[in-house]
């Protein structure tokens, strides 16, 4: 599954963030490298929520962390309003940091256990000054209220809050800097089911209230669909399918997307997931398969899949892009059609 090529990049929209051919590698000793992300291209329009979905080891979190430069980038560009985030260093990079904020997976580990939550939330304002002092209490209280934490508990420390509350505090911290882009890396997967919806709704509310653009990473297909306008399905460091959230889930064309949808414990009756069988184990990202990276597990694979890497191509004229030599035919009313 390859997923090279720039077909999914759009020109007609207010694009805020464009990632081109992003490559990330991690050394694992003895000269070996993990090919975490191998040439992925996508863009995010202003006000849009882009979901990235895939199983562990597919590189979705690495993509997120590379965009905000928590990882080193080996190749490619990350264009944000005319700045290539992949090339920026030092003060140039730091000055753009407030625009791109992040919500982390583990709500408890993402808060410093020794600091009061008021300090945690105001850290961004303390770093950036914000007209010295004017931010002080009213802004922090407003933020706390907007994420649903009573400001009178500002002097408590993180361990006195539940996981869901800690995640709210993390959201308030990110919002304090008035970011344009909010990157959410598995923000609800550590939370209890009954609390997940609270946080997902809060993210939607905050997105509308503060005009945010969201990049939402999750392994949970239903959660990703709920929040996203557009979704990228990733496998072994590559993108296999990109498209409008509803369209992609209704007409999954890539065998891997189908396999993912078929594996949901409670498959949706409306989605055709036939031919979504998957077998075997995830290959090592140290020596990824040649050709299409999905070839070792795909029931459709032919010779070409073992030699040529498929390029991203548009499906029909909808917002749907696919990297597969043998896309699964769309079924319309139970009829197989190509």
């Amino acid at each position, binding site marked *: 599954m390859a997923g090279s090529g720039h077909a999914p990049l759009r020109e007609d929209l207010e694009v805020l963030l464009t990632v081109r051919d992003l490559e990330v590698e991690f050394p694992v000793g003895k000269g070996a490298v993990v090919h975490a992300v191998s040439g992925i291209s996508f863009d995010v329009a202003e006000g849009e929520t882009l979901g990235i979905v895939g199983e562990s080891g597919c590189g979705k979190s690495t993509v997120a962390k590379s965009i905000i430069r928590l990882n080193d980038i080996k190749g490619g560009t990350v264009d944000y309003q005319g700045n290539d985030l992949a090339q920026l260093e030092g003060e140039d990079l730091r000055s753009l940091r407030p625009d791109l904020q992040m919500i982390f997976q583990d709500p*408890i580990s*993402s808060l410093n*256990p020794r600091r009061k939550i008021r300090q945690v939330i105001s850290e961004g304002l303390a770093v950036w000054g914000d007209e010295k002092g004017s931010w002080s209490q009213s802004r922090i209280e407003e933020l706390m209220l907007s994420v*649903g934490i*009573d400001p009178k508990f500002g002097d408590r420390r993180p361990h006195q809050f*539940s996981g869901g509350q800690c995640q709210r505090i993390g959201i308030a911290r990110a919002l304090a800097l008035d970011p344009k882009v909010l990157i959410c890396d598995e923000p609800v997967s550590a939370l209890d089911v009954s609390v997940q919806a609270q946080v997902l709704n809060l993210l939607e509310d905050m997105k509308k*209230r503060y005009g945010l653009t969201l990049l939402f990473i999750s392994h949970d297909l239903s959660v990703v669909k709920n929040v996203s306008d557009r979704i990228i399905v990733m496998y072994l460091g590559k993108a296999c399918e990109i498209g409008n959230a509803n369209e992609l889930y209704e007409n999954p064309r890539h065998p891997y997307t189908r396999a993912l949808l078929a594996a949901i414990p409670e498959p949706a009756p409306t989605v055709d997931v036939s031919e979504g069988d998957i077998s075997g184990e995830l290959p090592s990202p140290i020596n990824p398969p040649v050709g299409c990276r999905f070839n070792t597990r795909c029931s459709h694979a032919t010779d070409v899949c073992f030699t040529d890497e498929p390029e991203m191509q548009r499906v029909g004229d909808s917002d749907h892009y696919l990297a597969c030599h043998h896309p699964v035919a769309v079924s319309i009313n139970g009829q197989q059609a190509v």
Partner: protein
Amino acid sequence: MSDVENAHVEIMTPDDMVDDAVKKRLGIGFWIAVGWLGVLVATVAFAPFLPFGDPDKLAAGPPRTGPSLDNWFGTDALGRDVFARTVYGARVSLVVGFIAIAFGMVVGGTLGMVAGYFRGRVDQVISFMFFTLLSFPGLILALLITSTFDRTLRTVSLTLGVLAVAPVGRLARAATLVFAEREFVQAARVIGAKHFRIMTRELLPVVLIPMAALALLGMGVAIVAEGGLAFLQLSVEDISWGVIINDGRGIRDLQENPHVALMPIGVMFLTILALNFAGDRVREYFDVRETAF
């Protein structure tokens, strides 16, 4: 479908259960230990104003007598009051212990945190330094320095301080390595905090706790080490616990007047026990539970 502006955001209160569970206690043992250290420090600080007599006064009592009302810890071969000597000796021992560890904390802690935070080449250089320091026999280093330079309080303290750099530094490095991987440090980077701010605001408060516990333990080690140097007559040219113990180590003294050595040894033992115990409790007390359920 509710409108955003009207969306009812529920305001939550913290988890009271967790709140109460955190009210841990330091325990009575801790306060006894701290009490002992407090009494010791107060006694040592105000010794000149207290009726303990002159530690160097010869024939303060009959030589080589056991503990009595006049001489609480007895007298040594020269008839000096062992109690007065122990009190004045504590001044040197405690000051040496404190300065040595303070030096180790500042220098070792800084180096260790820098190594653990920046990693890579910086870490390699600093870690190599630590290894060198650790593999160099400490006693010989101390012998070299004290015999080459002088035997002032400052030299002895700093010598022991240099020896404390590597253990403290390695602990600081290890703790920093662990915490620097945590998401709260990544969050600080994302916010745009500079390295210095991340190290002082985010990492120092969490790294300081294991370091403080080690410091209390290390003070004990430094006091013992000073005693060792004194035993070899290479420590400060003044009374310290090591010097007093050295005075009482002759075969005849040990057989007939064991109190000369045993009394300061006992005080030293209690002090080090108190330091170790307090260090252990401090670590436990601040070991914040990070999982709320």
